[in-house]
């Protein structure tokens, strides 16, 4: 896995602008990305998962469909 830390940093900044946070956990060849919402986050402002997967694919160097992506709504 070849993580582009600059790209991840840019994504974190973008998410933070909407009051979201991101945690990335590597496990072998796969990666889990969990997005959490802050108190000022608006649910509609978070991009749909296919767009997020495209961003993460570029940043993480893994196929988009191998990324386990967890959104705030998934936990409810």
């Amino acid at each position, binding site marked *: 896995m070849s993580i582009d830390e600059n790209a991840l940093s840019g994504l974190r900044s973008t998410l933070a*602008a909407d009051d979201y946070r991101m945690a990335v956990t590597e496990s072998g060849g796969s990666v889990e990305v969990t997005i959490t919402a802050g108190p000022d986050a608006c649910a509609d402002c978070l991009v749909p998962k296919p767009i997020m997967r495209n961003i993460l694919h570029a940043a993480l160097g893994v196929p988009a469909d191998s990324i386990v992506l967890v959104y705030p709504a998934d936990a409810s």
Partner: protein
Amino acid sequence: MIDPTAGPSATAAGPPRAGRPERLDGLVVGLVANPKKNAEPFLDAVGELLAAEHGTAGVVRTRKTSITDPIPPATLDELVRRCDVVLIGVGDCGSCSAAAVADGIAFEGAGVPAAVICTDAFRVSADAMARLQGSPGYAYVTTAHPLAPLDADAVRERARLALPELVELLTSAVPVAAR
């Protein structure tokens, strides 16, 4: 909910881009605002500046009701019929920036030059949507984030600052790089 995989094939050779007018005088400008705060005042201010400084003939306004969804097909068709160029924005969150880019690409595909405005915090989202739509490198104009908290005078000033790049996007025959 927007389908980011809709639209041109991801293998398309470059972004679809409508032909550009050399000048804007006498043209009708579509203003496609999203529901984010200050989107409409920003676009209205640009419309006023275009009339005052570039002689545009009028505006056709529409306000999207969804942050996340693309412009409804019927609204797109109406604006394609009535407008010579369109301004779309303001992308001031992740999903509305992506949707604005998708709308811009849709107008270009329908033959109408479009200029999308996003705030600079959301380049990542805007660029990702462009890639998913088969238009990597799709050019748009940015203004500083955030736009929503600004008062009316500050919004007008942002519009004034963005105007030269917007005019260039609408009239330049050669695509400019995303800024």
